[in-house]
């Protein structure tokens, strides 16, 4: 019953999505055709049934808001918002139905039988709903619907015409993904006869991280669809300007915050769960999440230039298209089986073809619309090369270059195979060597940019402002080189740049009244500081990590970094759905009190899988990371031990970046609300 209800809700949601698109086209269609050069045409030309309605829907008149009376006359337009909300509610119901099926372990549903198991702890039955291809696709569509509903309910800055165009864009994207779900990935398909027991969830995914990581990441991924729809709306209505940028900014910021959190959490999850001691592997799936982040970061900065200085119009639109395109390309890469990856989802060329067709329609369509329309967008304001805008442009170009490198590196094996027929894989050496120097440059520009003035900046005072940071950078460089002669070039530069940038990042607060500093300035400072902190963590990890791989017998003591680790014993241990060998490690730093770490080698029953569960001791200046490996024939056990100084800064920095984003978002929204109140008070 639940499965049928879920499927019905999904179908209804899809139909409402179609209705939303039809309504948007009906409202916008005639007027778009009637206004050949609309960016200069007077608003009265855009007739929509009645001149009054045309005027009301016109975007030239900034005083017209959605809730103004004029819009009431356009019946169709008034329907778009409620339809968007209803669609989201129905899809969310379908998703809730799937979660209910997983929690109840309804084995008559194929997806549940393949991924669920009654012995599984409740949290993983719950999270199992999205730990698979179909379920995660349903979550994707649900978030898409909710994002559209949020725009329909919350967006107050956009003029009605553009709001409708944006919701139309959202519906157009939604329609394709609904079709993908309903025709190629039905999560509610029945299995007859029902098996006595389900297969379970990949044990690697049985970790609290799974419950939170994918939803967070998806909120970011799919949240970018809003920016995409905004860009489409702007191109359709030919309204690219500061007002549009100010409306789009909070949505980009919101998606970007979740994307940042998702990537940071995902990196930490892979770090402690996979047991190999690394925090980033340039795996295609990791790259699939990094690419939209890079584009969104560039977009976030260029949308600010558009909002405050009315510059970079075409570029902002382009980035909005690219950011969500990267989300979709990522989805495609992960689900088509086209690239082999540790955590690729459904390896299925038929689904791949369907998704590829969607990519062609959406990305190709958007880029074609861009090429056709953006030429009619008036060029924005000009600025000097040395200026805040100039720095933001450089930052944008660097981000885009990094994005290009990651994209090419991810697809390179495919390209080489197509051209020469040889199989190869691109690993961390390529990415580190290619991305590293650009990333360092990027961080330097990031530190310097906020210290520049808008429009034009004189070089001399700028250099004076940058002097303290530059001095620290050089000091750290020289000191490290002398103290640690063996340090590699990239980590050395990384630490020096991190120190300099940290100082430059907080410099905008210097000699300001901190209480009266706007929240979004705080946000920028915290986010930039977070990048410097994360960079310091990465550089420390690659420069100072100590690794020991030993075959230890019980009672033996091994030293790693400042720690001595005594292998106290191995005991069997049991969980709800696995058995494990658990080592007891007595770890001691210098003459300090001993602490105990218990890494496990686990064997899950369903599906039968062996995993190693690392045990980590976190202290202020780093982490001791321990993994229990296999037992050799002579009775000794493999132990892998790492001392990783300051590695936690990587994720702490990531969290700071997200916090900075959140502060900026709260600051922007609060200022909006205050402005609206003032307006209302005057009226």
């Amino acid at each position, binding site marked *: 019953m639940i499965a049928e209800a879920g499927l019905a809700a999904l179908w209804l949601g899809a139909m409402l999505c179609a209705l939303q698109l039809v309504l948007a086209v009906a409202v916008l269609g005639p007027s778009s055709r009637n206004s050949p050069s609309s960016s200069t045409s007077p608003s009265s030309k855009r007739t929509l049934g009645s001149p009054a309605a045309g005027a009301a829907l016109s975007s030239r008149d900034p005083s017209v808001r959605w809730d103004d009376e004029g819009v009431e006359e356009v019946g169709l337009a008034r329907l778009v918002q409620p339809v968007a909300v209803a669609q989201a509610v129905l899809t969310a119901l379908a998703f809730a139905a799937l979660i209910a099926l997983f929690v109840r372990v309804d084995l008559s549903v194929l997806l549940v039988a393949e991924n669920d198991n009654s012995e599984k702890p409740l949290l993983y039955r719950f999270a199992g709903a999205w730990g698979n291809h179909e379920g995660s696709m349903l979550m994707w569509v649900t978030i898409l619907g909710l994002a559209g509903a949020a725009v329909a309910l919350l967006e107050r800055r956009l003029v009605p015409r553009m709001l409708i165009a944006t919701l139309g864009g959202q519906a157009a994207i939604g329609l394709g993904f609904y079709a993908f779900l309903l025709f190629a990935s039905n999560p509610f398909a029945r299995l007859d006869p029902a098996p006595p027991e389900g297969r379970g969830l990949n044990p690697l995914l049985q970790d609290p991280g799974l419950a939170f990581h994918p939803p967070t990441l998806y909120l970011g991924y799919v949240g970018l669809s809003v920016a995409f729809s905004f860009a489409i709306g702007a191109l359709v209505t030919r309204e690219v300007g500061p007002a549009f940028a100010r409306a789009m900014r909070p949505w980009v910021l919101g998606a970007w915050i979740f994307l940042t959190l998702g990537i940071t959490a995902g990196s930490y999850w892979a770090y402690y769960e996979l047991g190999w001691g690394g925090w980033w592997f340039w795996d295609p799936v990791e790259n699939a999440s990094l690419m939209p982040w890079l584009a969104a970061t560039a977009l976030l900065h260029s949308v600010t230039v558009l909002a405050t200085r009315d510059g970079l119009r075409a570029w902002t639109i382009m980035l909005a298209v690219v950011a969500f395109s990267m989300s979709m390309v990522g989805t*495609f890469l992960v689900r088509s089986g086209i690239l082999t990856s540790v955590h690729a989802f459904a390896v299925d060329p038929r689904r791949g073809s369907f998704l590829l067709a969607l990519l062609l329609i959406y990305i190709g369509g958007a880029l074609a619309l861009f090429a056709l329309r*953006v030429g009619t967008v008036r060029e924005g304001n000009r600025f000097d090369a040395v200026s805040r805008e100039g720095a933001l442009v450089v930052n944008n170009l660097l981000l885009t270059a990094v994005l290009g490198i990651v994209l090419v590196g991810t697809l390179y094996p495919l390209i080489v195979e197509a051209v020469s027929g040889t199989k190869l894989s691109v690993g961390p050496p390529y990415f580190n060597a290619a991305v590293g120097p650009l990333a360092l440059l990027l961080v330097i520009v990031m530190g310097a940019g906020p210290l520049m003035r808008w429009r034009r900046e004189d070089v001399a005072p700028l250099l004076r402002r940058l002097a303290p940071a530059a001095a620290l950078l050089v000091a750290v460089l020289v000191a490290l080189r002398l103290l640690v002669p063996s340090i590699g070039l990239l980590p050395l530069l990384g630490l020096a740049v991190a120190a300099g940038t940290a100082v430059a990042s907080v410099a905008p607060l210097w000699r300001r009244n901190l209480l009266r500093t706007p929240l979004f300035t705080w946000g920028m400072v915290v986010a930039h500081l977070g990048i410097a902190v994360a960079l310091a963590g990465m550089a420390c990890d690659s420069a100072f990590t100590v690794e020991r791989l030993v075959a230890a017998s019980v009672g033996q003591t091994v030293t790693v970094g400042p720690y001595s680790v005594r292998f106290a014993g191995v005991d069997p241990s049991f969980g709800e759905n696995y058995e494990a060998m658990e080592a007891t490690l007595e770890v001691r730093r210098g003459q300090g009190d001993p602490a105990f770490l218990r890494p496990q080698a686990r064997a899950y029953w369903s599906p039968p899988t062996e995993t190693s569960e690392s045990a980590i001791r976190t202290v202020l200046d780093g982490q001791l990371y321990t993994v229990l490996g296999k037992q050799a*024939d002579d009775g000794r056990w493999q132990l892998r031990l790492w001392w990783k100084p300051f590695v936690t800064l990587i994720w702490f920095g990531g969290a700071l970046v997200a916090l900075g984003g959140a502060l900026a978002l709260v600051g922007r929204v609060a200022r909006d609300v205050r402005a609206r109140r003032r307006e209302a008070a005057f009226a």
Partner: protein
Amino acid sequence: MSGRPILWAPLVAFILLAAFLTYGLAKPDDTNITSKMVGAAVPPFRLPPATPGMPGLASADLAAGKPHLVNIFASWCVPCAAEAPQLRAIADAGVPIVGIAVRDRPEALADFLHRYGNPYARIGSDNASQVQMALGSSGVPETFVVDGRGMIRRQTIGPINPQDVADTIAAVQAAR
């Protein structure tokens, strides 16, 4: 048309990308992954018999002048059961097949051979997966073509499907 060709560059770049993606989807799935071990000699090993009544397996058996098919399998592995008829057909064609049973119990293995047939001339028991790993194999089933001098000529990851039988026999004969 806006008259500015540069504006079409993103679309052209994307279409190029899409073309590669289309190629990636369309290319036939190639399971014959060339591992680092292909072209190398079988590492020296000696495995005890895996089940009563069958001889065990040592690397010397594979360098005695005749090419072999080395099949890594286990009784608990479902695709191995699906692969069994193909192995029987290959053995019936006169190709010597030896097995390496991974993490198996003698009774379970005997039961497996009774149920699905026994195409093997020898079966070694690899309880710690050590020989499996030394061969560069990461899962079951996997099959190697080893020539008469003990050199690995080919590695097939995953089960041998019915359409692969002729090709596999030809590969062993070519390895002579």
